[in-house]
C-alpha cells in the first residue's frame, strides 16, 4: 500500500500520539522522503519567516511541547538542524513524525543532517536498539539510515527582517521593564517563555545608546526610559516604523548547519560541491560541518569529540564577511539556557531538547526569524490555551541574561550586544547587521502530558 494523501494524514495522526506506524508504511514513507530530499541541494534555500530548531534527540514529548510553543506545522515554517534521533526513548516516533510532515508539507519544514543521523553513531547511542526493540528487526533502522544519507547539510535563510515587531504579550515574572528599550527603538532580540510572556528585549546598538545618552547604565538605578509603551500600543507600530527602510535590506543571509565550519570550506559554494549522499565520513568537510564547535580560541583547534574542529571568533567573522552572512545558526552543543550567542552575535547555538537525557535540567529554545516586510513578518499566534509546560521558568537566567547586556559584561553571553570587539577587528568585524531574533524558551513537557504513553526515564548517576 502506498502512503500518500489520507494515508499520510493517518500516519501523522498516529505518530502525533507517539505510536509507531507499521514497517511497510515506514518503507513507503522513507522512499517518498528520499525522492523529495534528492531534489534538494546540499544547502537548502529557505525564505523567512522561519523558526529554527536545534537537537531533538528522541524526546518526543518535548517535540510536541516545541510545536505548542512555536506553532504547528504547516502554520509555522520550521527548520530543524539535525540530531533528531538517539539518547531519548522516542527517536523513532520523533524522526518519523518529522519525516511525515516533510513529505506532507515539503515547503513548510526543512530537515538538515546532524552528526547523529549516521549508521555508526546510532548503533552506539540508542536509535538502532530502539528500532530493533520496536520492530524486532533492523529493517526500519536501515530505511531511516538511507534517508539520513539524503538529508541536506545546511540551509541558507534569506529575507529575514533586521528588527522585530515587539510582542504585545504580557511580561514574565521578574522581568525588569526598566531594562527595556524605548518604544521607537529597533528591536534586535526578544526572548519569550513558553507561555508567550516577554522575558527581555534588546534594542539594536543598545550599548552605544546606553553609553552615549544614559548616565544610568546601572540596571538597578531608576531609568528615564518610559515603561515599554510598545507593549500597550497596537502590535506592528513602534519599532517597525523606526526601521523606515534604512536597514531593511542590510541583513545578510543566515547559514544553518548542525555543527559548524570546516577548514576545508571557505565559501558556501564549496558546501554545494560536496557529494553528500553517503554515510557521514570520519573526516573531511562534510564531517566537519556536522561535528565542529565554536570555541574561545584563535583560528582552528582540535576537537575533544574526536571529529570536526574547534573554531574561533576570527574564523566566524571572516567566513560571514566573505559569504555575506549576518549570522550562523547551529545546534550540536547543550546550552543550559537553550541558546547562546557568541562572537558579537555572529554565531548562535540553538538547543531544543529540554532536560536533555532526562538529567541535565536545562531549558530549550527555538529561534524565530521574521520576514523582511512591513511588520517584520511577525504574526502573533495563538499558542492554545494550555498553561502546560510547568511555567516555572528559571528566574536566575532571565535576570542574569538581562544584566549581562546592560553591564556590557561578557561579550560571549547571550545578548551579545557588546560590540567593542568589532572596532578592534575593523572592516571584517563590522559585518552585516544580524536579523531580528526572537527566542522562545521552554521546559520539558510533563511526563504524563496529553495522555501519551511515556516510560518513566531512569537517568544514570554514580552511586
Amino acid at each position, binding site marked *: 500500500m502506498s502512503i500518500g494523501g489520507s494515508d499520510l494524514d493517518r500516519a501523522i495522526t498516529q505518530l502525533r500520539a507517539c505510536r509507531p506506524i507499521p514497517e511497510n508504511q515506514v518503507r513507503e514513507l522513507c522512499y517518498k522522503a528520499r525522492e523529495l530530499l534528492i531534489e534538494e541541494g546540499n544547502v537548502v534555500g529557505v525564505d523567512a519567516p522561519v523558526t529554527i530548531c536545534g537537537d531533538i534527540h528522541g524526546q518526543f514529548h518535548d517535540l510536541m511541547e516545541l510545536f505548542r510553543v512555536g506553532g504547528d506545522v504547516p502554520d509555522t515554517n520550521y527548520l530543524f538542524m539535525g540530531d533528531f534521533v538517539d539518547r531519548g526513548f522516542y527517536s523513532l516516533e520523533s524522526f518519523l513524525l518529522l519525516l511525515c510532515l516533510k513529505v506532507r508539507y515539503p515547503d513548510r519544514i526543512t530537515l538538515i543532517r546532524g552528526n547523529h543521523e549516521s549508521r555508526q553513531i546510532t548503533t*552506539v*547511542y540508542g536509535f538502532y536498539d530502539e528500532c530493533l526493540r520496536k520492530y524486532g528487526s533492523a529493517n526500519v533502522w536501515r530505511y531511516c539510515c538511507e534517508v539520513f544519507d539524503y538529508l541536506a547539510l545546511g540551509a541558507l535563510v534569506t529575507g529575514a527582517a533586521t528588527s522585530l515587531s515587539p510582542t504585545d504579550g504580557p511580561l514574565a515574572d521578574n522581568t525588569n521593564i526598566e531594562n527595556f528599550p524605548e518604544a521607537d527603538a529597533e528591536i534586535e532580540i526578544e526572548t519569550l517563555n513558553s507561555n508567550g510572556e516577554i522575558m527581555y528585549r534588546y534594542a539594536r546598538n543598545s550599548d552605544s545608546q546606553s553609553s552615549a545618552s544614559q548616565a544610568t547604565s546601572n540596571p538597578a538605578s531608576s531609568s528615564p526610559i518610559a515603561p515599554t509603551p510598545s507593549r500597550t500600543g497596537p502590535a506592528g507600530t513602534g519599532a517597525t516604523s523606526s526601521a523606515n527602510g534604512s536597514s531593511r535590506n542590510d541583513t545578510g543571509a543566515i547559514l544553518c548547519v548542525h555543527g559548524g565550519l570546516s577548514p576545508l570550506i571557505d565559501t558556501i559554494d564549496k558546501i554545494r560541491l560536496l557529494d553528500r549522499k553517503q554515510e557521514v565520513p570520519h573526516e573531511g568537510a562534510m564531517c566537519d560541518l556536522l561535528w565542529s564547535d565554536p570555541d574561545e580560541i584563535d583560528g582552528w583547534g582540535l576537537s575533544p569529540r574526536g571529529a570536526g574542529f574547534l573554531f574561533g571568533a576570527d574564523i566566524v567573522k571572516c567566513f560571514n564577511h566573505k559569504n555575506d552572512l549576518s549570522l550562523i545558526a547551529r545546534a550540536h552543543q547543550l546550552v543550559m539556557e537553550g541558546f547562546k550567542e557568541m562572537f558579537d552575535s555572529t554565531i548562535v547555538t540553538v538547543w531544543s531538547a529540554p532536560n536533555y537525557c*532526562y538529567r541535565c535540567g536545562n531549558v530549550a529554545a527555538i529561534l524565530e526569524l521574521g520576514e523582511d516586510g512591513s511588520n517584520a513578518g511577525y504574526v502573533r499566534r495563538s499558542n492554545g490555551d494550555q498553561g502546560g509546560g510547568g511555567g516555572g521558568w528559571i528566574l536566575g537566567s532571565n535576570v542574569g541574561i538581562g544584566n549581562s547586556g546592560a553591564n556590557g559584561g561578557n561579550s560571549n553571553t547571550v545578548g551579545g550586544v557588546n560590540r567593542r570587539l568589532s572596532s578592534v577587528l575593523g572592516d571584517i568585524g563590522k559585518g552585516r547587521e544580524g536579523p531580528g531574533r526572537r527566542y522562545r524558551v521552554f521546559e520539558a513537557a510533563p511526563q504524563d502530558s496529553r495522555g501519551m504513553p511515556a516510560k518513566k526515564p531512569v537517568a544514570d548517576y554514580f552511586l
Partner: protein
Amino acid sequence: MASSEIPNLRTLLGHGRGGPSRGRGRGSGHGGASHGGGEALNDQAVQKTDDDAASFRLSSVELGYLDDPYAKYLAAQSRPRRPPLINRGTYVRTTAIDLLIHKFLSTSPEQPKQIVSLGAGTDTRYFRLRDAHPNAQLVYHELDFPANTMTKLAALQKHPQLHSKVSPQPPPNPLSLTPGATSFHSPTYNLHAVDLRSLATTSKATPPPPLPNLDPSLPTLIFSEMCLVYLQPSIASAVISAFLTTYITAPTPISLILYEPILPHDAFGRMMTSNLAHRNISLPTLMEYPTLSDQRKRLRSYGFCDVSRAADTEFIWREWVAEEEKERIAALEMLDEQEELNMLLRHYCVAWGWRDGGAEGVFSRAWEGVVEMDGG
C-alpha cells in the same frame, strides 16, 4: 552488633552505602523499627545503588577503561554496556581514589599501613592492590552490612582468584568459616559485618563495636566512595569521630578520602536530587556540604587538622590523568556527550584530608604534589 544498640532509627533515614538489605537476607541484625513502609522502600532503592556501581564497573572494565580482572567475580550479573560518559565517570572516580592510595602505599613502602573501606560493597580494590603492591605490608578492612559481607564471602569462597588473595599464605579451601559467618579476618584482609551507624553511638558507656585486626598504631587511610553520603550529616560525623578518637587515636597518622556528589542547587543538581528521590535515594550530606569549600571545612571539622583538599572530578580528569592516558581513553569509544560529561563530572568531587603531625608525616609526603582545585 545487636539491634538494641541502634538509636532511634527513625531519625537516621538514609542508610550506609548499600543499606541493611543491599545483599540478600534483608534485615538480619536489624530491629523491626527500621522496617516501616517508607524505610523498606528506601532499602530496596539503596540496594540498587551497589548494583549500579558494580555494573558500571564491569562495563568500564569490559570496554578497556579499567584493568580489573576481579570485577566480573563480584558483579551480580553482566549488564548491557553503559553509555560512554558513564564509563568515563567510573574511570575517573576509580582512578582518582587509586592514585591517592597508590601514593600512600608508595611512600615509605617498607612501613606497614592500613586501609579502611567504608561501605565497601562489591569493591574490588583490595584484590587489585595486592597485585599492584605485592610487597606492601597492608592490612585492609572493609566495613559493610552483614547481608553484604555474606554475599562477598560467598564470592570469595567460590572464585579461587579471590580466595587465594585473602591472606598472606594460601588459605585453606574452603575457608574455615562457621556456618552463617558474615565476617572474615586475616592478617591482610578483614571483612567486618557492621552497621556503620553503630559506630555513631560511641560514648564512654557504649564503646564502639570491636573491629578485629584494626591496628591503632598503623598509618590509616579511610575512604568513603559514595557511602557516608547516604547518612545524616551528624551520623556521618560521629562515624568518622569514632575512628579519630577511639580506634586510631593521635598521634597515629590518619586520613579520609571522600567521593561524593556536589552542587545540588544548580539546574543539573536539582534534577539529580529529584531523579534520585524518585528512586527513593536521598543524599543528606550533599545538602549539608554542597560545595568544594564546604567539603574542605567538613574534613577540618572532623579533625583532619593538617590539610584538607578537594577537587571536582572534571578537574581531576583534566589535571591528574596523563595526556597519554587521556588519549588511550579517548580512543576506546566515540564520545559525543562532551558538555554533558563535563557537567556530570563537575557534580562529583574527591575530598581528602589528613592528620599526621606535619610535613614529615606519611600523608603530607605522599600527597604533597597532588593538586587540588582553587576555590569552589
